């Protein structure tokens, strides 16, 4: 590897256009894209799904598949044009000078090869290293990415590692031959927040250590703020704004960037006094892009006859290599306060409608019960869950994967029955009644909105038919006409045009599908709605609209909303009370303010610190949890969190190792499960501080 002049850019993309060719037509995926990455610089590519950010990455790798082709422009890596390079030359570049880290670590590792073999392959190909030397290097790099017991890991197969460990292996693989450029394609999207925080730290540290340039692709603005020096915002195949992170975040010069920031829940946003502003309309399909500015139809500053007249080029904005693809950026008053958004009254909270008392759910997993072989193991999915929810209240349930939040939802819905404990809904015990045996009334009053709107609608039934079907099951309406009328009303409720009743689900976008899901959940006049990550599969700009809709329906119907999420920003924005779960235990429960300010449960503290926030004013205390979440099949003795807790040494006598902490009430309605003495709890500092403006 030759040393590259540090003053010249590592990667220069100029006016790059990439199209995919189908039988029907050419679909331009990326148009007129330019960016420059200097040595040691981290460049962020931000945008919603379908905006072409991953296509740019694959274009740099020249791996666009059979249908993709670069139709114009150039990609220069260390001065050499990649678009005209031969396959053989490219092969020498891939993996040695440019390496890539992928979104799904499990899928990107070969399931039938040991980790060591996959890692050692890289230097063996590119540096003709001997096998022993390559394995030795692999061992060093595995230790570098901070994995415990490297020798064992090298001999392991991918499925034996956890998601976080797998991603560290993928990073290690990328670093095996010290590449000059690292492309990270949503490297943490599939991981839990606390694991994500660890990976982000690692990536930053290694970038500094090896002086690697990075192209960091993400839809998460908060992450980009943490990792990158510069960023490029993409919309519908074009770069719309580029510049250094501080300038783009604080002095944005493109309406799309502005709208994006207004639609994500930053600290200070509140569902009643400062609601989010969703971007109106939908993302244009690649072959239905409007003339002129692609963002035009959704833009507040749109001027007919000017914005849709000609192709718009990237224009220089005063500042540090700052550019914007907007004709009007010099005219718009960027500091103007948000137009008066309607504020709403806080919904008063009513009677207790749902009460859980010491609810337990254990699963038995045993193999070979048929011949009596194998020991049955017990998975303690929920451990003594007690709480109550009131009418019109939003209770958020927060926790990482495997914490038992979905199991709890299943038990409440009646898809599973409780092992012990009580669920009382409207003075009725329902913990032992599976859903088949519940009365129509009970079923229709507890409904669910699911995480993935793409899988939960029947693809061969019209939207209206599916809602009517729900109405039939709930026994609503006396005739087909009545039910049809009610269905149209429900479409109004979720703000979908009435024509959508006759459409098939495939004709709808993700956000629209989720609205149908919500309409279906409310079809029987649900009193309690369990929303299991209802917006996490949606794009940022759509999330705000769907969240708003849920809030509005809740206000209207005085519904109790149980909002299951791992995204603390959105939880903070919309919930009244928050319940934090870890390994089946409720570790903290309180009002949103109580949970989000000290004293915290140590796990809540770590969780808050791990969530990336897209606001330059925020300073956070870095708390990175070591290791992975223990398996629910084999939980640690004593406190479930003791294996990763940074406060453990403050508790005298090794109490954490021995006893499950009792529930303690700190203030009215605020409870935590922790052994920490009061004086330590009161000394806790806030994790997030916002600098005064």
């Amino acid at each position, binding site marked *: 590897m030759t040393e590259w002049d540090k003053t010249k850019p590592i990667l220069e993309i100029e006016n790059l256009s990439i199209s995919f060719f189908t039988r029907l037509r050419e679909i331009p995926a990326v148009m007129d894209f330019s960016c420059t990455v200097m040595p040691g610089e981290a460049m962020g590519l931000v945008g919603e799904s379908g905006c072409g950010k991953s296509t740019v990455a694959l274009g740099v790798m020249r791996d666009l598949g059979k249908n993709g082709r670069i139709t114009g422009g150039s990609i220069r890596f260390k001065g050499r044009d990649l678009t005209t390079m031969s396959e053989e030359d490219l092969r020498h570049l891939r993996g*040695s000078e440019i390496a890539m880290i992928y979104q799904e670590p499990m899928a990107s590792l070969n*399931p*039938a*090869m040991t980790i060591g073999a996959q890692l050692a392959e890289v230097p063996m190909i590119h540096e003709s290293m001997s096998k022993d030397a390559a394995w030795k290097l692999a061992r060093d790099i595995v230790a570098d990415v901070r994995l415990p017991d490297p020798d064992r890991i090298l001999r392991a197969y991918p499925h034996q590692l956890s998601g976080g460990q797998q991603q560290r292996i993928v990073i290690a*693989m990328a670093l095996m031959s010290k590449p000059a450029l690292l492309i990270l394609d949503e490297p943490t999207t599939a991981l839990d927040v606390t694991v994500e925080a660890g990976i982000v730290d690692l990536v930053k540290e290694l970038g500094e250590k090896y002086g690697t340039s990075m192209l960091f692709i993400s839809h998460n603005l908060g992450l980009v703020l943490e990792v990158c020096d510069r960023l490029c915002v993409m919309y519908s195949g074009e770069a719309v704004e580029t510049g250094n992170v501080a300038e783009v975040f604080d002095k944005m010069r493109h309406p799309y960037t502005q709208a994006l920031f207004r639609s994500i829940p930053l600290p200070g946003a509140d569902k009643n006094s400062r609601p989010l502003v969703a971007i109106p309309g939908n993302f244009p399909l690649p072959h239905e892009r409007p003339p002129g500015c692609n963002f035009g139809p959704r833009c507040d500053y749109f001027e007919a006859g000017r914005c849709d007249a000609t192709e718009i080029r990237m224009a220089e904005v005063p500042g540090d290599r700052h550019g914007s693809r907007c004709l009007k950026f010099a005219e718009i008053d960027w500091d103007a306060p948000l137009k008066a958004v309607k504020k709403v009254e806080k919904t008063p909270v009513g009677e207790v409608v749902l009460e859980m008392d010491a609810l337990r759910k254990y699963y038995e997993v045993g193999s070979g019960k048929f*011949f009596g072989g194998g020991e049955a193991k017990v998975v303690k999915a929920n451990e003594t869950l007690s709480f109550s929810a009131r009418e019109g209240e939003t209770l958020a349930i927060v926790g990482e994967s495997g914490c038992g939040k979905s199991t709890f939802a299943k038990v409440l819905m009646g898809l599973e029955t409780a092992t012990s404990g009580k669920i009382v809904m409207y003075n009725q015990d329902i913990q032992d009644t599976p859903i088949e045996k519940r009365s129509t009334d009970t079923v229709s009053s507890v409904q669910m909105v699911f995480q993935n709107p793409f899988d939960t609608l029947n693809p061969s039934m019209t939207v209206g038919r599916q809602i009517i079907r729900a109405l039939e099951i709930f026994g609503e309406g006396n005739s087909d006409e009545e039910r049809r009328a009610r269905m149209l009303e429900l479409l109004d409720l979720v703000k979908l045009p009435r024509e959508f009743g006759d459409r098939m689900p495939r004709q709808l976008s993700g956000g629209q599908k989720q609205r149908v899901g919500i309409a279906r959940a409310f079809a029987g006049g649900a009193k309690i709605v369990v929303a299991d990550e209802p917006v996490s599969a949606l794009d940022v700009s759509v999330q705000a609209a769907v969240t708003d809709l849920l809030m509005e329906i809740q206000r209207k119907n005085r519904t109790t909303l149980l909002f299951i999420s791992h995204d603390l920003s959105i939880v903070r924005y919309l919930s009244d009370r928050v319940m934090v779960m870890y390994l089946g235990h409720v570790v903290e429960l309180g009002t949103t303010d109580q949970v989000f300010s000290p004293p915290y449960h140590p796990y809540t503290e770590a969780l808050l610190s791990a969530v990336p926030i897209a606001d330059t004013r925020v300073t956070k205390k870095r708390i990175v949890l070591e290791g992975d979440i223990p398996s629910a099949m084999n939980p640690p003795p004593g406190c479930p969190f003791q294996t990763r807790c940074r406060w453990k040494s403050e508790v005298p006598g090794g109490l954490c190792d021995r006893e499950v902490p009792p529930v303690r009430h700190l203030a009215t309605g605020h409870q935590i499960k922790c052994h920490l003495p009061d004086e330590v709890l009161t000394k806790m500092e806030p994790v997030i501080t916002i600098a005064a403006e």
Partner: protein
Amino acid sequence: MLMFLSRRLGIMALTALCLTFVVFFLTNLEPNLEKLARSEGSVRMSDDQVTSWLEANGHARPLIMRYGEWLGVLPGWTRDVDGSVTGRCIRGGLTAETAPTRCGVLQGNWGQSSVFKRPVGEIMGRSLAATGWLMLWVMIVMVPSALLLGVLAGMREGTRTDRALSTVAIATTATPEYVSGVILIVVFASATAGISPVLAEWGWISGRTLFQGTATSAMDKITFWNFGLPVLTIALYGMGYIARMTRASMTEVMTAQYIRTARLKGVKFRDVVIRHALRNALIAPFTVIMLQFPWLLNGVVIVETLFNYKGFGWTLVQGAGNNDIDLLLSCSVVAVIVVLVTQLISDIGYAFLNPRIRIS
């Protein structure tokens, strides 16, 4: 692993027991026994004589008893008529005193073949050895060529190579053995038709035909000349099927993300296929290949009869055609064991190929 094996062997024994009972029941139906009586005794026996013959030879007792005797868990029947004792186990120079009480499959006594007038065990041993050679050569020809065909077709989906190879695979597997066998004989093993006369004229082959149309001489000495056609007939049929399976699994693996990872690591295309894709692609066809063994038994019946090769299939046909109950029973036991053993091997091999199952 031991636990797994012993459990599997237990299930196998149970399955074998059930299946042999079904076969025993079917071969010992009333009309079959009547036919047996007439062929062993006299064709012109009256119905009364048949009944008494069946009684005299121990066939008139409850089915379950007879099954137990055949199996060797119940003592064989004895019959004392005027002082001379006859019985199931009293044969071949043994007297009532020296004969063992139980003589069934478990004691290694497979019975006497009524067609060949010899112990079934001896016939089975000989024919299985013959079929074993046939199977071995079929596998040697079929598996590598099928895998090669499948991998070549699957590594670049939709290309001309893929389409050409897929057509070949479909054509061979769509032609049953009794068709392909006849065609192959005409083309390669006829002194007047096909390519043999041409080759002989050019002096490329010393004999009159490229292959021999009958494989009887292969019983003594296997040569390319006498064994080529039967092997080819069975192998062609199975090859297409396995190749299709391999292709499907190969195309799927080639689109997997870890293949992209390997490609973007800078691995050569050849190594991507051999080192990264092949093992993953072989996991699915492996079970299919193992299931081909029992299927081969099918083909063997036709091919051995066609080429007059006195192996297992030929023996089965003889037994079935001549109402040879003991021979049929032992054939079915062998078939059951072949099926179950290959299944066991397939499960173990699957675990070996797939680390996700091996280490759990």
